[in-house]
């Protein structure tokens, strides 16, 4: 024992813990909110078992991936209205190409679609950095382009995929069942990978740097344009992953799915997940429960006897509330500092 008193020792070990809580409090809060809602939901319905859990996890998967796509891009200082269009495009492309193919082929096609989406969306990022036109304008264009391309790829709803591919996202050859694990593993692996990249690697951390202050990032030797293009590429791949999940759930593609609505849901999810729309702040891990909660609002409101059409109103109010709350927290933090 040195001269350090036990009290100081405790304080010393507590400080980083408190710091961790302060930094990750929002993430923890959203996860808690999710479990709270699930616990509440369980009391509202007659039976809560594997079927219910699988139903929530599986069907929330597309929105979770789409929210992660949006989070990566917004953290890097952009915003991508095209992610919903990319979801639809990748979903119908998968449905068209995978129909009647064996499992192995569908996996190869899935990888190719993810790569193509990354390349296409990095092109969107490149146009934004070259043209200096705001992200919101260029990606509004890409939303319409993707949606239009989707109609060209699959003019009528249809197509298909392999049973194994459906299992990969839904835990069942038929897209419905009592096994939430494959979807949970898919989400965990994909999100852990992107969270590790953004939190531990040089290129990932440069997203935060470029997103919070372009000039400062430039002065410290970061090529902000390159970072943005990279963010759009990763975001595009995640949007495509959401599309693949959609195809796995439905077992087919539908180009008339409105991508714009999906985009708005992704923005709502990242706001709830604590990502600052101004860039530079947020984490992919907090966006996961936020995405699940947004999907979950519909079943829970139904169970409460609220008309689901008012779910949109509640979703809107929730976003305003969260924005106000984050604003107040930020303001208090600044005043204390």
């Amino acid at each position: 024992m040195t001269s350090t008193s036990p009290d100081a020792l405790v304080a010393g070990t507590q400080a980083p813990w408190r710091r961790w809580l302060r930094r990750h409090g929002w993430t923890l809060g959203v996860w808690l909110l999710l479990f709270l809602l699930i616990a509440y939901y369980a009391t509202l319905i007659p039976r809560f078992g594997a079927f219910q859990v699988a139903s929530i996890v599986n069907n929330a998967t597309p929105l979770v991936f789409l929210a992660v796509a949006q989070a990566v891009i917004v953290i890097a200082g952009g915003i991508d209205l095209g992610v919903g269009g990319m979801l639809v495009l990748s979903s119908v492309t998968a449905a068209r190409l995978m129909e009647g193919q064996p499992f192995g082929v569908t996996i190869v096609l899935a990888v190719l679609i993810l790569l193509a989406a990354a390349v296409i969306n990095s092109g969107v990022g490149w146009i934004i950095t070259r043209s200096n036109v705001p992200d919101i304008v260029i990606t509004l264009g890409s939303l319409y382009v993707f949606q239009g391309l989707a109609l060209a790829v699959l003019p009528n709803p249809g197509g298909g995929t392999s049973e194994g591919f459906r299992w990969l996202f839904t835990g069942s050859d038929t897209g419905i069942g009592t096994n939430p694990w494959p979807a949970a593993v898919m989400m965990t692996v994909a999100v852990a990978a992107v969270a590790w990249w953004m939190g531990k690697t040089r290129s990932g951390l440069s997203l935060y740097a470029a997103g919070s202050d372009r000039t400062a990032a430039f002065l410290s030797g970061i090529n902000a344009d390159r970072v943005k293009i990279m963010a759009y590429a990763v975001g595009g791949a995640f949007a495509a992953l959401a599309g693949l999940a959609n195809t796995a759930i439905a077992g087919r593609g539908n180009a008339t799915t409105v991508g714009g609505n999906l985009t708005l849901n992704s923005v709502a999810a990242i706001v709830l997940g604590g990502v600052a729309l101004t860039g530079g702040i947020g984490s992919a891990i907090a966006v996961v429960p936020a995405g699940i909660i947004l999907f979950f609002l519909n079943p829970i409101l139904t169970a409460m006897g609220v008309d689901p059409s008012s779910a949109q109103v509640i979703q809107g109010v929730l976003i305003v509330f969260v924005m106000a709350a984050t604003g107040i927290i930020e303001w208090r933090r600044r005043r204390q500092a």
Partner: protein
Amino acid sequence: MSKKTKFPAWRLLTVLAVFALIAAACGGDDEGGDDTFTLGVSNTLVGNAWREQMICAIKAEALARGNVDEVVLQNRNTDVAGQIADIQTLISQGVDAIIINPADRSALDDVIAEADAQGIPVISVDAPVTAPEAYFVSNNQVEYGEVGARWLFETLGGEGKVAYMRGLDGHPADTDRDTGWVAALAEYPGIEVVYENWTGWDPSVGAQQALEILTTMEVDGIWTSGIDYTVVEQFAVAGVDYVPIVGADNNAFIEQLMNTSGLVGAGVSNPPSIGGVGAAIALDILEGKDVSQETLLTPVVLDSMDELEGVYIPDLTAGWSSYMVIEPYVTYSDAQAVIDCKGPGE
């Protein structure tokens, strides 16, 4: 100051944990009485008059039967993947039967099989599904497409250019109507289809397309998949003479056919109150009655003044159909029950 930030965080966690415990503790489940039922409804097109009336008819029938304690609605604009999730939600809510208007013919098969496996019958209203377990209650949509097309081609004397304004792309009813349309068209070689598009069963989209047709091309007749009265309005907007037009039994269209001079047309019946028939079938199944797996209504062509006056209801919401009491299926005896749109407990 650091203590200040420490306590709220702890307090928050404690409050959340207490809430979770309370919520988990009051998980009392009252399954309801033995003789009452809960009906689930899944509809994927909102803000559409036909679908709203369909749901009102379901509620009216549920109320009239007296043994339904609740109608649980999954009513939102969504696609097939969304409807699969919605039906799973209804299964989770513990409903006794599910009435759906399917967004796709075969993509719902697996979720319907799951509902069936959990002892919940599924009744597909308005359009068929391929699931062998499902009950099917509908207007005969193939015939709907065919009789309307035949009326139009006959009225044109078997010759002329026609516009084909379809419904919702991929919807089974739209596909079926197309089958009927194609069958009729094959018998009239003199008819040329100069325009084909989907209105998405949206009156404003239909109006837009009609204006485009009337101002940019010559047509001798128009077939619509039930988007009719807003199309008729566009003739006046474009300042062109009326051509024969086929629509559905929308009250506003019926009124136009009765009162507009120079307008020739026919309404083909496609009552949204089929929803009430669906609810009646669902309850028959739950009550243990012997029910046929398929219930098809034969569409009728309304084109004479007598027929039109027979179905017309003054002061009805635009876009609503006039034909509501579908005998012998439904229990409610008055169209007002559907117009009131009140289910059990409302």
